[in-house]
């Protein structure tokens, strides 16, 4: 039993169990909750958050943090909307441009963090202000996207049995599979875990710590931009106020998914279960109808607390046994 609770996958399994419990409780309380479409809606509504949480997983696994993702998402929707509506770029070029912009933004933050030995927290905090500010420089109003390709993508439905998903879901799931492969089956992924475990040891092992760290923040920026593209499919608009506080949702999802904030411990796949738990809570509150939206915040806070304490106790005990 002890070896089971101290195994690395234990907290990840707790989250999955919690998710199943939440869904079963919902199914018992509300008829129609457990339908396939409601389950797929969880993914449709949170596809952008899943992509962002995947990028955040890499950052947190390496022992860092990225507070700029929500703002980069907003900036992406804004730049995409502006390029489409005012500059009349073709949609493919727009998507490529904003993804490159997100990756470059992240990479720059990575350079500042690694090469100038600055704290990730304060650098990405600056990045958060910068990206939000740049949104308002483009426009302080919301820009509606009328590009036919974006509209088609936003309305497209891909049927699975009698239910459907959006293209965004497919993109986010593909991203998840790719991320799991990168994190667990490539030298780069092992370097991420090594840096999160102990940066000095990683350095002494001869790993390219600097290059890896810049790449990690570039991935996070890229994921934030991809999340922004999915978000603009979903909302069909660019707006500087989009997705405020998303960085905290993403961090919460990663923590609830079983990744330790101190780095080096957890699974990228935990991002999925974490995001689904957050989504399930929101859906439950929406189904109830009498509970107001702020209950979501309180429940997420309580869950964060429980998971942090459980992780703390587990890691304290595993230290005692070793």
């Amino acid at each position, binding site marked *: 039993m002890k070896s089971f609770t101290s195994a690395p996958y234990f907290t990840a399994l707790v989250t999955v169990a919690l998710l199943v419990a939440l869904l079963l409780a919902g199914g018992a309380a509300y008829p129609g909750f457990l339908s396939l479409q409601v389950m797929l809606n969880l993914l449709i509504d949170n596809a952008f958050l899943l992509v962002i949480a995947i990028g955040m997983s890499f950052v947190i696994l390496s022992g860092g943090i990225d507070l700029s993702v929500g703002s980069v998402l907003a900036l992406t929707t804004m730049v995409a909307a502006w390029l489409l509506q005012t500059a009349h770029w073709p949609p493919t070029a727009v998507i490529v441009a904003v993804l490159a912009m997100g990756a470059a933004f992240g990479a720059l933050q990575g350079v500042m963090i690694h090469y100038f030995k600055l704290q990730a927290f*304060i650098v990405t905090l600056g990045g*958060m202000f910068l990206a939000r500010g740049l949104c308002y420089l483009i426009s302080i109003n919301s820009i509606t996207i009328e590009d036919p390709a974006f509209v088609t993508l936003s309305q497209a439905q891909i049927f699975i049995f009698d239910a459907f998903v959006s293209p965004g879901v497919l993109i986010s799931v593909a991203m998840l599979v790719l991320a799991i492969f990168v994190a667990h089956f490539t030298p780069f992924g092992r370097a991420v875990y090594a840096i999160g475990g102990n940066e000095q040891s990683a350095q002494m092992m001869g790993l390219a710590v600097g290059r890896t760290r810049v790449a990690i923040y570039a991935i996070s920026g890229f994921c934030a931009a991809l999340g922004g593209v999915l978000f603009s499919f979903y909302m069909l608009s660019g707006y500087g106020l989009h997705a405020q506080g998303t960085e905290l949702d993403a961090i919460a999802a990663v923590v609830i998914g079983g990744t330790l904030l101190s780095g080096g411990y957890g699974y990228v796949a935990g991002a999925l279960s974490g995001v689904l738990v957050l989504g399930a809570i929101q859906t439950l509150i929406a189904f109830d109808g009498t509970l*107001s939206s702020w209950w979501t915040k309180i429940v997420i806070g309580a869950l964060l*607390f429980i998971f942090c304490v459980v992780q703390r106790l587990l890691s304290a005990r595993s230290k005692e046994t070793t």
Partner: protein
Amino acid sequence: MNAQTLPVPLAASRYGSIMTHALFKPSAALAVLLLIDLIFIPGFFSLEVKDGHLYGSLIDIVNRAAPLMLAALGMTVVIATRGIDISVGAQVALSGTVACMLIAGGTPMPAALAAAIGAALLCGAWNGLLVAALKLQPIVATLILMVAGRGLAQLLTDGQIITVYYQPYFFIGSGYLLGLPFSLYIVAAVFAVVALMMKKTALGLFIQSVGINPVAARLAGLRTATLIFFTYVFCAACAGLAGLMISSNIKSADANNAGLLLELDAILAVTLGGTSLAGGKFSLAGSVIGALIIQTLTYTIYSLGVPPEVNMVVKSLVVFAVCLSQSAEFKNLWKRRK
């Protein structure tokens, strides 16, 4: 941890000691800002007496900066112990909400104020317990309250904005005493008490040693956990006071927006003031100057007719500039170039 330990080869020792003083950089930054204001904004420094109160841009800036100065004071002490408190904004919302609800409900003002500060102290104790007793990372520990605290405040008000019509309550945020805004006296009092405790007792030294090396401090016999616990309680008390000021100034409690992102401004103020985020050396006066820089910057941007949207971009550039100026690696880069 980096800037202070660098040897500074300066020939003129008298000027050198001024240049290397901890408060030199933030004061110089503030002076440059004020100089810009002097040149570009006519009548910036003019003060006049109307209805027995002083009026003028400077008074306006100081008055508006008061909540931020309080939050920054609390944050300084937390950051000095290698911590961080990102739930300050939520605490501001919570304390303002509690005060306004009780006053609107007819509770006598002293009881309402006590309850509001009490709520903030509870938040601080919660954060302190998580960090000091459970040894959670400060960012995560306070993230919990940052998310849930605002939710609790919204729950109390049912998402509505609560307006108060009780005249004496407005005094805290917009009243005047002897011609100066009353909020200034609160900041001055808090600053004086804390500065005295830091300079005249060993508390300042204790906090600094916890920040420089927590393990060594504990081995030297300091009760580090208790110290850390109380820094969070103090930070929350400051945030609670700031919450009262803000809600009294706008004559209402807005659980959704009150103190939104205030924690980030407070952290920025502390960093601008020369306190390293890595803990250890801290400067209370620096943080107050940092808060004034932020507010003056905002004021300048507005009065120069620059669109207010630019404010965030400028603020972020200031953050990067300050960070880079603290980075030893960045300085070495320049030295090598030369």
